[in-house]
């Protein structure tokens, strides 16, 4: 394992030096509690990516990125447990592939990323209101367009319904009205708060040793009075009152999502049995859900179970004909019962273990490495893929059954297709 360095309180750097890739990548993952201003944070990360002090103009910035052989900068916002993770990243080709002499592409990209975070484009200590307005329009549009992908949208709805009175039920971007209300001053406050209180993981995968990245980020954080925030996530062991919500849309295919509580009381509670159990249940093409709901009953094209282990919830989703909701639900529940009853073979366990090994050990992409460690931004000790695999291999059949027995269904969301007669185009 490469060395992990602490650059400042709550700021760690994980640098992998390797020349097996053609690129140099850096990702800065910053975690904040869901209780902060989610909308201001989400806008902030996009404003930081838009331009910076050195390149105050979007066209200038992107022209430079093109000249740097199509280097890119990215910004993303996700939820991980009850933390909002904001990531700024950059990818460029390694210097050895430059066509000119002595071009320092990766150093320039590292400086650029660092500049975006510490030296944004401020005028009289304020963020540019035109840029904030533009990014606001784009973010609002992104929120509105979540409905376009019905599978994604149905997943979000089920999450909202299951966690209706928990922080996890909120959107990663905050509510639409909250985004609309954000001012340039709020962005400034969010920026200050981010630098001061986010828990931060910088991952760097490059042919160089990461010294430059260490130096520039260390320098950036040296001016900041760090007070890393406490980030905790509420786990509810038992399902609350059952809820089913149905919404009708003019679509061809219905989307069914089932939301379960795992029964975990914290992230360490039967962590590995949960992972293996959900994989056996619906994680892959050898799993119960694929083999039965899809292959045997031909009810759907996809049917997967997804574990959000940092919250202790599970979602099963499938795309079906609306009238098959009951059939699909009862088959999903039946397959869960099969796992509870131990109705699976040693070969099934072995297949699942191998499938998970494959998923975790395939680290031949720089961004996969960055994501692996970025996801652990809030954890005290970092776990390598090999360590995780070793722990998973110790899970027994009894533990899998026990984990399955704790699973309880709390929410069902059905996005159903309007019938032909009910279809209308009026506004």
């Amino acid at each position, binding site marked *: 394992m490469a060395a992990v360095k602490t650059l400042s309180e709550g700021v760690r750097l994980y640098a992998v030096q390797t020349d097996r890739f053609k690129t140099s990548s850096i990702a800065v993952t910053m975690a904040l509690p869901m209780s902060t201003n989610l909308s201001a944070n989400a806008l902030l990360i996009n404003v930081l990516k838009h331009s910076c002090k050195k390149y105050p103009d979007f066209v200038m910035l992107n022209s430079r990125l093109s000249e740097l052989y199509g280097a890119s900068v990215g910004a993303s916002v996700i939820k991980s447990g009850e933390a909002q993770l904001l990531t700024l990243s950059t990818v460029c080709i390694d210097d050895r592939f430059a066509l000119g002499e002595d071009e320092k592409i990766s150093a320039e990209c590292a400086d650029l990323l660092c500049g975006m975070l510490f030296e944004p484009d401020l005028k009289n200590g304020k963020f540019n209101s035109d840029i904030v307005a533009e990014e606001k329009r784009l973010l609002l549009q992104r929120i509105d*367009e979540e409905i376009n992908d019905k599978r994604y949208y149905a997943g979000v709805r089920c999450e909202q319904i299951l966690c209706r009175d928990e922080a996890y039920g909120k959107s990663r971007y905050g509510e639409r009205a909250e985004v609309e209300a954000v001012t340039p001053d709020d962005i400034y406050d969010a920026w200050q708060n981010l630098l001061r209180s986010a828990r931060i993981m910088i991952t760097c995968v490059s042919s160089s040793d990461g010294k430059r990245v260490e130096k520039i980020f260390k320098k950036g954080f040296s001016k900041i009075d760090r007070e890393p925030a406490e980030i905790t996530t509420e786990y509810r062991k038992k399902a609350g009152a059952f809820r089913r919500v149905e919404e009708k849309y003019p679509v061809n*295919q219905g989307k069914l999502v089932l939301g379960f509580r795992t029964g975990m009381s914290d992230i360490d509670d039967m962590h590995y049995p949960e992972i293996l159990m959900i994989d056996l249940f619906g994680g892959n093409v050898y799993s119960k859900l694929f083999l039965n709901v899809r292959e045997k009953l031909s009810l759907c094209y996809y049917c997967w179970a997804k574990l959000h282990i940092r919250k202790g919830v599970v979602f099963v989703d499938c795309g079906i004909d609306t009238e098959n909701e009951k059939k699909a639900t009862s088959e999903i529940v039946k397959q869960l019962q099969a796992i509870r009853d131990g109705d699976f073979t040693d070969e099934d366990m072995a297949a699942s273990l191998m499938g998970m090994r494959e998923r975790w050990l395939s680290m031949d992409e720089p961004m996969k490495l960055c994501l692996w460690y970025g996801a652990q931004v809030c954890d005290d000790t970092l776990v390598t893929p090999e360590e995780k695999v070793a722990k998973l291999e110790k899970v027994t059949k009894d533990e899998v059954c026990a984990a399955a027995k704790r699973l309880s269904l709390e929410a069902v969301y059905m996005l159903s297709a309007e019938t032909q007669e009910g279809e209308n185009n009026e506004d």
Partner: protein
Amino acid sequence: MKIKEFRNELLGDSVFYAKHKSGLDIYVMPKSGYSTTYAIFATKYGSIDTHVKNEKGEFESIPEGTAHFLEHKLFEGEELDAFEQFAKTGASANAYTSFDRTAYLFSCSENFEESLGILLDFVQKPYFTQQTVEKEQGIIGQEIRMYQDLADWEVMFNLLRALYKEHPVRIDIAGTQQSIAEIDADLLYKLYHNFYNLNNMVLCVCGNADTEAVLKIADEKLEKANGSKIERKFVPESPVPEKTYIEESLSIAEKQFLLGYKEDLKQPEVTIEDEIASEVMLETLFGKTSPVYNDLLRQELIDMGFMTEFFSGFGYSVCMLGGTSRDPEETARILRETVDRAIETGLDPEAFERAKRKLYGRMIMEYNSIEDVSNLLMNLHFAGYKPFAEIEACRALTLERANKRLRKLKNEYSALSVINPLNKEQKDV
């Protein structure tokens, strides 16, 4: 067997090629330091292949979506299906069908040789029964419905249907509920034996694998193929679109559009030099640094999702531009005007150089991914090019060639596809 090495000094990589005695073309690109390997085994048979030669040598039409149906069904085996076999090696397997090919693939970090054996085996051992065919009709039916609700998918197929009157690029890859209902086990066997012949196929491997090991498995699993390469028939079609405007309503938040320029093809396929010239031309004119992109953004007519694509294959070629817009027709008008003006003035040389550098860098980046490399080797092979041809073509690209490609864009050959939002009737709880 002769093994040929293709070396690219710039990348510092080599691709090894062998024509296997069975007739199969094999490419291997070892990646030092990698722990995973990706393999793809593909046949030149896709959704545009809608005809098959019968015993009398006449062309007979086949139902739409059969290549895709066959892809699903090949996973079935007499004893164990392919997924069950891969579950024993830990490999992660999949397959896909596109306009002009069907590909079967896996990636793994352990048991590579065993998994490669499974891949070569199951694709060569068709097993269909009427019962399993019927079962698949339900699954694929749901796959078709899923795509019918996706606006990005629909906006593109509608555009192709507007641009092309005859060419089968206008049909859906998975076919329709009706067309797949016509498929039975006998038909699948017939098509299998026609299109799945090693002379019509390619195997590409990239990652932690060496050429000798791949060839050893090939020797064990492949027998000399009967039959020859399938030739596609090129039927030139008028460049004038069937329709210049097409629209559909779906349950989405904001309008989406795709503007397409159809090319007047004299040859069935666009050369790789021209393909790259078109990509750079589109980036020069419409990329994030272009004046029109920024004007449209300021006027709130597009968002960051605005994209361009050069889309081509056997008998079809389209430059596509699109995204989300509150006013697709006004946006399309501005885009068309930009094309007309650029044809008069030529591309800005500095912007062209920047776009070319960007594309070059993105090509280098692709070589990180064993999946991308394997697919790239397959694409180059099917198009008749050697490994690394795309990098060479990019480096040699001139402004003159890009301008020549620009002048191919003609408004009378263009069409606009729009998806309008359809309001939902919500029953909130």
